[in-house]
C-alpha cells in the first residue's frame, strides 16, 4: 500500500485518518459524503494515497463463523462465492461478501464469512471511484482491535465507547462470540446492561480502548480487572487478517473504466510517438530525395560524357599510357614504373566509372601476374561500364583493353 488513508465509519461519525492528521466529520456518511470528498480532494490525498482502508462497525455487516473442509485460500474463496446463497440468502446485487480464515484446525479451516450492505457504503465507493482511489480492504472495527489483543490472549473482551454508544465484543478461543452495542443515552439502562454482560462473561481479560473513561470508571467500581490499550491504526492495519471484499460488482465496473482510461493514455502516448516518428521519417525521406536527385544528376553527367565511345577509349588509352610508364615500358616509351596496388586502383576506378585522372598513383613495377589479373579485371571493367553507361559501344572497349593487354605482354 502506498500512502495510507483510513476511513473509519463508526457511530454517525466519519474519521479520515492519514499520516499527517485525523479529520472527524460528524454526521451520517450518506449526508456528509460531499464533505468527505471535498476533504480528500482538498488535502490531495487522492494523489498520495491511491488505496484506502475502510473501517466499519460490525453492525453494518453480518458475520457467520463456520468450520470448512481444509482447502487453499483461492479455492476456499471460489467455493464461498459459488455457494454464497447457501450462507447468506440475500440479494447478491445489494450486498458485498467476503470470507477469511480465522484459524486452522486439523483438516479444517474455521472461517468467518461476512456481508455488508452496499447501500450503507455505496456513496463512498462511488466517491472514491470518481477520485480514483481503490478500496483495498474493508475491516470490521472489532476485528481490528481483537487482532491487537489476540497475540496475548485467546479469550478476552473488549470495551470501547463512542459519543453515543458502548461496544462490547467477547472472544473465546480466538473466535468472536458476540458484539453488543449499548446506547448511552439512558445511564440506568447502560449500567443494567453492563452488569448483565459482565456477569455472563467468560473472558480471562477485559480491555478498554483509548482511555474509554466511562467504561473504565464503571469497571473500576465493579472491581473488574482490566487494561487500557491504545491502538495505532496505521501500524495495526498491516497485521490484520482482513476481509478483502474485492469481488464487489461495483469495483469491477470501476476496473473496466480504469482499463479504458489506461488504454486512452496508451493511445495518447502512441499518437505522440507516431507524430514524432512520422515527422522524422518524412524529414529523412526528403533528405534522401535530395541525395538521389544529386546522384542521378551526377550520373547523367557521366552518361553525357561517355555517350561518345571515343571518350571511353580515350580514358582507357590514358590507363594504357600510365601502365606503359612502368619498368620496361619506361625504357621503351621513356615512362616510369607503377606499383601493383596502383594498377588495381586504376582498374577499379574504371569499373566504378570514376575519372582516371583523379586517381593518385605511386611509382612501381608491373609483373606478369598483374597482367593475368588484368585480363579478368578487364572483363569486370566491361561489365561495369556496360552497367553504368549503356550507350557506349562495348566492342570498342573490349578491343581497346585487349590491345592494352597484348601490349603489356609484349613489353614483358
Amino acid at each position, binding site marked *: 500500500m502506498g500512502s495510507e488513508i483510513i476511513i473509519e465509519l463508526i457511530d454517525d461519525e466519519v474519521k479520515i485518518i492519514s499520516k499527517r492528521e485525523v479529520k472527524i466529520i460528524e454526521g451520517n456518511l450518506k449526508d456528509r459524503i460531499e464533505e468527505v470528498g471535498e476533504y480528500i480532494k482538498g488535502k490531495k490525498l487522492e494523489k498520495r494515497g491511491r488505496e484506502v482502508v475502510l473501517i466499519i462497525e460490525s453492525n453494518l455487516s453480518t458475520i457467520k463463523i463456520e468450520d470448512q473442509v481444509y482447502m487453499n485460500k483461492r479455492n476456499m474463496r471460489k467455493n464461498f462465492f459459488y455457494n454464497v446463497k447457501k450462507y447468506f440468502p440475500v440479494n447478491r446485487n445489494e450486498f458485498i461478501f467476503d470470507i477469511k480464515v480465522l484459524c486452522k484446525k486439523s483438516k479444517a479451516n474455521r472461517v468467518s464469512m461476512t456481508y455488508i450492505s452496499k447501500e450503507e457504503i455505496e456513496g463512498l465507493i462511488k466517491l472514491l471511484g470518481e477520485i480514483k482511489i481503490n478500496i483495498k480492504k474493508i475491516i470490521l472495527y472489532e476485528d481490528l482491535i481483537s487482532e491487537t489483543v489476540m497475540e496475548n490472549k485467546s479469550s478476552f473482551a473488549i470495551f470501547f465507547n463512542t459519543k453515543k454508544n458502548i461496544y462490547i465484543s467477547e472472544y473465546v478461543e480466538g473466535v468472536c462470540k458476540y458484539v453488543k452495542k449499548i446506547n448511552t443515552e439512558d445511564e440506568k439502562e447502560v449500567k443494567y446492561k453492563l452488569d448483565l454482560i459482565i456477569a455472563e462473561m467468560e473472558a480471562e481479560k477485559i480491555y478498554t480502548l483509548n482511555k474509554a473513561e466511562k467504561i473504565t470508571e464503571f469497571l473500576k467500581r465493579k472491581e473488574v480487572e482490566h487494561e487500557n490499550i491504545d491502538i495505532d491504526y496505521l501500524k495495526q492495519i498491516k497485521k490484520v487478517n482482513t476481509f478483502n471484499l474485492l469481488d464487489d460488482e461495483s469495483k*469491477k465496473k470501476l476496473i473496466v473504466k480504469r482499463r*479504458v482510461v489506461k*488504454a486512452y493514455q*496508451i*493511445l495518447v502516448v502512441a499518437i505522440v510517438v507516431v507524430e514524432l516518428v512520422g515527422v522524422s521519417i*518524412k524529414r529523412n525521406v526528403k533528405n534522401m530525395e535530395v541525395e538521389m536527385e544529386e546522384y542521378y544528376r551526377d550520373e547523367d553527367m557521366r552518361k553525357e560524357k561517355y555517350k561518345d565511345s571515343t571518350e571511353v577509349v580515350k580514358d582507357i588509352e590514358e590507363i594504357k599510357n600510365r601502365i606503359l610508364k612502368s619498368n620496361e615500358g619506361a625504357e621503351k616509351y621513356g615512362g616510369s614504373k607503377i606499383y601493383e596496388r596502383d594498377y588495381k586502383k586504376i582498374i577499379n576506378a574504371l569499373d566504378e566509372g570514376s575519372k582516371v585522372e583523379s586517381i593518385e598513383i605511386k611509382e612501381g613495377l608491373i609483373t606478369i601476374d598483374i597482367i593475368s589479373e588484368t585480363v579478368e579485371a578487364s572483363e569486370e571493367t566491361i561489365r561495369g561500364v556496360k552497367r553504368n553507361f549503356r550507350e557506349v559501344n562495348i566492342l570498342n572497349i573490349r578491343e581497346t583493353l585487349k590491345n592494352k593487354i597484348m601490349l603489356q605482354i609484349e613489353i614483358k
Partner: protein
Amino acid sequence: MKKLNTKELVYMSTLISLHILFTELISIRLPMVEIGFGFIPLAVIGILFGGLYTGMAMAISDGVGSMLFPPAGGWFYGFTISDIITGLLYGNFLYRIGSDGKKQQLIKIAMLVLIVNLGINLTMNTYWLTILLSKGMLVLLPARVIKTIIMIPIQYIIISIVINKVKTLKVN
C-alpha cells in the same frame, strides 16, 4: 515489473513463435482482405503476462518475424511501434480477465477489439502506409475500412472463445 521464471519464459517464447507463424503463414486470403490469426496467441500472452510483457513480445515477434519472412518493401519500424502498442492494449484489457464476471469480460473484449482495429489498424497503420507508399490517406482508407469491418466481429468472437479456454490456464 515482475521477473519471469523459466516456465513463464518457455510459455512466452512458444507463444511468440506461434504469433509469428499465425501472422506469416496461417491466414485466409479473400478477394478484398487477408484475415490473419496472429491476434490469437497475442490474446493468450495478454491474458497470462499483462501489458508490458505483451508489448515486448510483440516487438520481439516483429523483429524475428521480419528476419525469417522479410516483408515486401523491407522492414519498417512504424509497424513495430504499432505492434508494441497493440501488445500494450491487449495486456491492458485481457490480463487476468478470467477473474472478471462474464459481462465485464465481454465489455473488455469489445473495447479492446474496437480500440485496436479503429485506433491502430485503421488509423496508425494507414498513416504508416501513406508514408511508405507516398499515397494519400483517403486513397488507402476504403480497402482498409472493409478489412476493419470484417475483422472486428471475427476478433471479438474468436477472442471470447479463446478466453473461455485459456482463463483457467495458470503459468505458475
